[in-house]
């Protein structure tokens, strides 16, 4: 039998991947923002500067949810909040 902690680590890696999956929808939202900005620049080329500024701000706002997922993945991988309770559980379990 493998060490029980290996199972926790594997689950943590899978959880990190699931947390990163929200990048799909984030990217689609950002692509929509960029497409709309390019459309409006094509319609009104003299308003290029303000449109680009607002596009970057909108992109940053849309990126926030993706960044949250990334931060959660980093926490699961490096800060390892799952390991501590599991080790406590192993301590009180007889025969381990």
């Amino acid at each position, binding site marked *: 039998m493998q060490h029980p902690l290996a199972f926790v680590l594997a689950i943590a890696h899978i959880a990190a991947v699931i947390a990163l999956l929200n990048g799909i929808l984030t990217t689609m939202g950002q692509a929509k923002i960029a497409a709309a900005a390019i459309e409006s620049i094509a319609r009104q080329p003299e308003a290029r500067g303000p449109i680009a*500024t607002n596009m*970057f701000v909108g992109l*940053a706002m849309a*990126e926030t949810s993706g*960044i*949250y997922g*990334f*931060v959660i993945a*980093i926490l699961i991988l490096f*800060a390892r909040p799952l390991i501590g309770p599991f080790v406590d559980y192993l301590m009180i379990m007889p025969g381990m």
Partner: protein
Amino acid sequence: MFDANVPVHGVITINGFELWITNTVVMGWVISAILIIFALIVRFKLKNFKERPTGFQNAVEMMVDAFEGFMKANGNPAIAWMGGWFFTLFTFILLANITGIFPGMRPPTADWPLPLALALTTFFFIQFSGIRYRGWKYVKGTYLNPHWLFLPVNLLGELSRPISLSFRMFGNILGGLILVTLMYQLTPFFARFVLPIPLHLIFDIAFGALQAFIFTVLSLTFVGLAAAES
């Protein structure tokens, strides 16, 4: 392997309270020192500035002009006097993000406390400008919006702004740092000085400048909205 822990250079104990001098603190001091020395140089050269700018004076006037135009384009004219603070914020974040181009150096913004501190200053500026320019109407319109029973919800919404501001920059810079570090591990030794250069250009210079710009623009927009008469 990528090391998630920020290096600690020393611990100062004051009355049993531990003060950790981490890499972030040292880098923050170094960047502040660079900015202060540059400001002092500009101050001492200000006496010799002429009507027709040349050389160094040209560069300084260009920076100030560019930022004044930026404030006029994006901000509320009522808060134009805060331009100095926002310029400082922008240059500090820009320098902090760009330090990642030196291999082995860790950008201080890849550690959460520094972006959080910067975002909290923005939070206090929002409250200050709202109360100064709109007084009781700001408190009523923001915190007691439909009814005073909604105070906890409004408070939560207001507190989530510095958190999202800081997480945005922290996540971007930390992601770039992790990718560049892993790229250094992947490349063989002889290619280690060539292959990561495009990654440095993208993640440290382009994204760093973009994040500094976005942090400043969002702070400016929030403070301007709080001060606006609605």
